[in-house]
């Protein structure tokens, strides 16, 4: 996966805000996942339709983090989400 890829959230993946975190339920597998506060913000941006490059830009602006670090961390999270079936490319 790269930041130029287009991603979508499968319809059977649900998410709810719980405290400062987001919990995700994959209805297909019955598995639950948790996202910390930053991950939760990224998930929110994805649900609003932002694609990875735009998410990176938003993270840099909101968290005052170096663009390269933001990109590295974001890609790692996106790939993990994809590996768990919570995100699809295309």
């Amino acid at each position, binding site marked *: 996966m790269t930041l130029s890829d287009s991603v979508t959230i499968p319809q*059977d993946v*649900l998410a*709810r*805000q*719980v*405290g*400062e*975190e987001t*919990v995700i*339920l994959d*209805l297909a*597998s*019955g*598995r*639950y*996942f*948790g*996202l*910390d506060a*930053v*991950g939760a913000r*990224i998930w929110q941006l994805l649900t609003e339709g932002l694609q990875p490059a735009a998410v990176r830009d938003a993270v840099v602006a909101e968290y005052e983090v170096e663009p390269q670090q933001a990109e590295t*961390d*974001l890609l790692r*999270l996106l790939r*993990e*989400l994809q590996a*768990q079936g919570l995100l699809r490319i295309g």
Partner: protein
Amino acid sequence: MSLTAGPEAHGPAANSAPGGPVSAEAVTLRQLPERPQAAEPAPPFQTWTQPDQSIWALFHRRGPAYLLRFRGLADFEISADGRSVTCWPAPGTPEASVRHLYLNQALPLALSRQGRLVLHASAIEAQGVAAAFLGPSGRGKSTLAASFATSGSRFLTDDGLQIALHGAQAEVVPSHPSIRLWEDSGQALLAASAPAAPPVHYTRKTRFLAGEGLAFCERPCPLRRAYLLGPGLAAQVSIRPCQASDAFMGMVRNSFLLDIGEQQMLTRHFDDIARLANLPIHYHLDYPRDYARLPEVRAAVLRHLADPEDTP
């Protein structure tokens, strides 16, 4: 930024909870004559195992209904809407054992099928509000409930805690007026003459019945505090705030849900647990597992319940 994997949606292990007067109205039980347990045409969609990995219960689908089979003990068919249960004891299963299985296993699952939120938790009433104690088998839920119920407070349930959500408020619905205790807890907390149900042949727990010496609250109560029980490693009684996400995962691990493959019900369950987790009522509670220390535990919980600065 991190993604952590939580538990799979599942029901709790065996040794689960009873229902009660309110539950009995919500579910109709029909017991038919005993019969051999014939093989089901399809494999189970879920299996519960004992700690020694032996099979405890098998879950089969029968059209829109469900068959819950306890091998060598009894079959329970739960209707699609969870409002009726039909029971066939296996040959030779004592009536008391059938009743125990129904209250502890089939009834909470039937209630979950109705869309009710049912947790692996005990609850007590004190000062007009409820405190719940959540955790896996062996953490002391029933012992705590009995300790309060023999010392001036009342119990609402020893397991199979039903919670009704009304907007931003949660309410505990009373369950069956009995508490199941292992022999050591029974001896420590209750008189030898305390009324009890007939013994059950497959467990050494005794079901003590509510009465003068074991006070029961038969009315729904607002839930003021929910305590996630620790493993008993604390040297002193410890009560500390529990993050909403920890409360959420704790409830997922300790809740009843008959069919995790039924997405509409799983979605509702997810929503209910998230709503409950977002209430500012969740705490971690740990204490030394020593009967002599239970008065300290009770006093700490009662003070915490009454603390006006910590009221949701």
